[in-house]
């Protein structure tokens, strides 16, 4: 088998602010013709730098190749002149970037963007095709990614398509100039798990049908298991382990690989931890709550319809529960959380927190001392211009702490979330993602609440960091007898963290109960579809995933190949 891509001994450094930092150390990596190779590692490990060096979009300076070579199809990429190098872009090597929302120019139609890709690709190869020919080629390519209504897709702007469709178009874009090597950066991870599942299946099929080679860059081990023949594990710029998929998954040798594997929360099997808790008195009572939003249109902005974000939901959360609310984007889980937090008023129904009705209670100081929230992205929920100490002081100030008491409390809080005392003087940008989330948790705990709403608290974090934050949350709950409402789309994590879950679909709770029961014997087809779509890391888990028939799936899920009516 010939090597299509061959990276040898590659070292890359960056010069920034007068300092030199090496980010890739002697990287050896190759992709054979027709092979699917995965490069895994956490954020900051050097995966993206590797990708950008291969396709030639790494800005140099500040980046610099210090030694080593990259060969594509026998040609040395680093020695090619600019013109020859550009000729390979899109036509030899192409990419699918992670976020299908951000990877399109928002102000040009899909057709225009695809047309540019074809036209300039042709130009570099010295061919010219008529407009109609190019359009036919686009429609044909869209068919390959299972978008049959090509004409409508081409005339749409990116914002008019769903996430899954955009991801499909993005893959189509990469295929337009018939590349031989496709580099995919976290494909589908920005999407819902059921859509991701479709996208991964599509990529696998395309690689086989089009005779492509695939270099997949990801941090998701489940995706790797479904998508790769061979795997490279990268840690801080070093390739620490490489082998076939089965070698890596069955017998990981390097300590780092083993750590990564162990940090992935298992969906089924012996490794699953079940949180057991039987609460005796209810602390949150959601009674037949409905929230409708009006949709407006026309010249005079008249109300033309209603959209039910939450529809007749009833839930009871017991004191001490870790109550999971699962669902995909648009399922209403965030609206429900806002209602519980008293941030949005329900249209119908009532909510009781700690035995008191929310009406008139929400927004009072007592209420704020009872329930607090931790947001998904600590990078944006912390104020970048305030020190950690200042941020922790804000809620204290509003709940009547004086100066010395505030200082003492801040120091206690830092201890609680296991951060050193001197962090009080630091700014958020000096902290890692996990540390920032600890600060956010400390801030939520500052007024001694009884309930924490956790809105995807670990989804912006790497798995290793995720597991430490989850451990911290467990400890805190035990110590302070906290109740958690945990909102997430990550069902594997939910299985290991929560004791009860509710599954939401289009504003309704379709299934609720103790976590083991829901996961082991899911009743609703949607729950089964969700569970079966999760990429897992062992054949044992795969075997135990629930089965869902095509008809059942179609009944509860829209596929990402249909245009929405907007």
């Amino acid at each position, binding site marked *: 088998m010939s090597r299509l891509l061959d990276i040898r001994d590659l070292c890359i450094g960056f010069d920034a602010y007068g300092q030199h930092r090496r980010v890739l150390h002697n990287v050896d990596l190759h992709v054979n013709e027709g092979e699917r190779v995965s490069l895994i590692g956490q954020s900051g490990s050097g995966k993206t730098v590797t990708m*950008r060096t291969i*396709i*030639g*979009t790494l800005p140099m300076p500040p980046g610099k190749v210090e030694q080593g070579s990259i060969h594509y199809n026998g040609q040395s990429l680093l020695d090619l002149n600019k013109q020859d190098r*550009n*000729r*390979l*872009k*899109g*036509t030899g090597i*192409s*990419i699918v*970037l*992670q*976020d299908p929302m*951000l*990877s*399109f*120019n*928002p*102000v*040009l*139609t899909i057709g225009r*963007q695809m047309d*540019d*890709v074809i036209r*300039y*690709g042709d130009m*570099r190869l010295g061919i010219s095709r008529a407009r109609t020919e190019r359009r036919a080629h686009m429609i044909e390519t869209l068919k390959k990614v299972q978008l049959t209504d090509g004409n409508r897709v081409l005339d749409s*702007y990116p*914002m*008019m398509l769903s996430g899954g469709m955009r991801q499909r178009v*993005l893959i189509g*874009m*990469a295929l*337009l*100039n018939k590349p031989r090597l496709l580099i995919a950066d976290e494909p589908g991870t920005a999407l819902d798990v059921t859509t991701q599942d479709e996208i991964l299946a599509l990529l696998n099929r395309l690689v086989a049908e089009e005779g492509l080679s695939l270099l997949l860059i990801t941090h998701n081990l489940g995706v790797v298991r479904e998508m790769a023949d061979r795997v490279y594990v990268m840690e801080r710029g070093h390739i620490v382990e490489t082998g076939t998929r089965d070698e890596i998954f069955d017998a990981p040798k390097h300590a780092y690989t083993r750590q990564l594997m162990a940090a992935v929360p298992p969906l089924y099997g012996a490794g699953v931890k079940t949180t057991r808790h039987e609460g005796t008195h209810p602390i949150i009572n959601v009674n037949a709550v409905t929230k409708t939003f009006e*949709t*407006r*249109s*026309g*010249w005079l*902005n008249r109300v033309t319809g209603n959209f039910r974000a939450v529809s007749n939901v009833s839930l009871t959360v017991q004191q001490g529960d870790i109550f999971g609310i699962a669902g995909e984007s648009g399922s209403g889980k965030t609206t429900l959380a806002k209602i519980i937090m008293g941030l949005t008023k329900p249209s119908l129904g009532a909510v009781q927190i700690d035995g008191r009705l929310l009406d008139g209670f929400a927004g009072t100081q007592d209420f704020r001392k009872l329930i607090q929230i931790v947001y998904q992205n600590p990078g944006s929920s912390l104020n970048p211009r305030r020190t950690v100490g200042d941020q922790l002081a804000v809620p204290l100030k509003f709940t009547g702490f004086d100066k010395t008491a505030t200082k003492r409390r801040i120091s206690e809080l830092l201890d609680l979330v296991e951060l050193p005392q001197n962090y009080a003087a630091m700014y958020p940008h000096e902290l890692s993602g996990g540390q920032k989330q600890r600060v956010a948790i400390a801030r939520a705990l500052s007024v001694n609440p009884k309930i924490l709403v956790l809105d995807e608290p670990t989804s912006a974090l790497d798995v290793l960091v995720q597991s430490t934050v989850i451990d911290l949350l467990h400890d805190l709950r035990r110590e302070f007898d906290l109740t958690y409402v945990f909102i997430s789309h990550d069902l594997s994590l939910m299985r290991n963290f929560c004791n009860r879950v509710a599954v939401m679909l289009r504003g309704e709770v379709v299934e609720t109960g103790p976590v083991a029961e829901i996961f082991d014997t899911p009743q609703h087809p949607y729950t089964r579809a969700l569970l079966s779509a999760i990429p897992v890391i062992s054949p044992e888990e795969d075997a135990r995933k629930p089965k869902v028939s095509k008809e059942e799936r179609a009944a509860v899920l829209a596929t990402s190949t249909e245009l929405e009516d907007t």
Partner: protein
Amino acid sequence: MFTYLFKRAFTLLFVLLGLAVLIFVIARIVPGDPARIALGPLATAEQVTKLQNEMGLNDPYPVQLWTYLSGLVQGDLGKSLLTSRPVMDDIMGALPATFELVLFTVVLQILISIPLGVIAAIYRNTWIDSVLRVISLLGVVTPGFVLAIILQLIAAHYLGFFPVTGRIDPGIGFSAEITGLLTIDGLIAGRFDVVIDALRHLFLPAIALAAAGIGQVMRITRTAMIEVSSRDFVEASRAYGIPERVVTFRYMLRVASVAPLTILGLEFASLIGNAFIVEFVFSWPGIASYGVRTILQKDLNAVIGVVLVSGVFFVVANLAIDLLLGILDPRHRIRAGRGS
């Protein structure tokens, strides 16, 4: 697109009505009796009262407002005390000169500031960026009239190529009768000497007027371009092999141009304000010199007319910018069309 246009035009009507009422109120609040000023200190009290009655100044305010608004709808702004001619005629005579100047200024602003902003973004943190930064700061901090005088001195007096005052060389003997704009009418008549002479006259006042806006819009373009350059789609376009030139202008600038264009629209208000001074310095026969004279004379009808015309200018310019944004960015259009 049609709905979008219609909606914008509809709101425009209300803005203008509000503006008309506001000016009316302000004109009544400002101290000083226009009839007294018009007749001079020697007139008797009876004469003043008579003129007040003729002008309707003694009617109740609602009646005055009604007369004023109904006149406005028919294009009647009343008579000017200063020139004793209908205000509408005075304004229509002076407006084309100002319109031509302002239009040329905006064109200069767009043609200079956006490309320079793009260049500053591409060469950011190099000496090119630093030089452009200094230029833009100078443009922002130099008051229009100071720049106007400096330009007159250097470019016109020492270099002698650009004329110091006026719209056109009186020796050419050409009057713009179709659109009132010398450059356009010159083109229509095929008189290229007229076009060139008019452009020579336009250049200095337009630069003096444009400088502040150029400096500001340049910086905003630079910032917007730098922000856009880190978006994923830019990297994607490069990786698909789209040439750098196309990535910069079609992909990045189109997204980045929203902020600078919005600012240009708002800048329009200060443009008309500054035109008053710049026109004065360059003896430009525009609406500004008329405006200044009428304000000093408290020629109420004329002041209202001038302010109203400036207001229309501003509102129409912003409508034009909105339409342009709608064309450049489909999200504006789709959102407005949906009405959410």
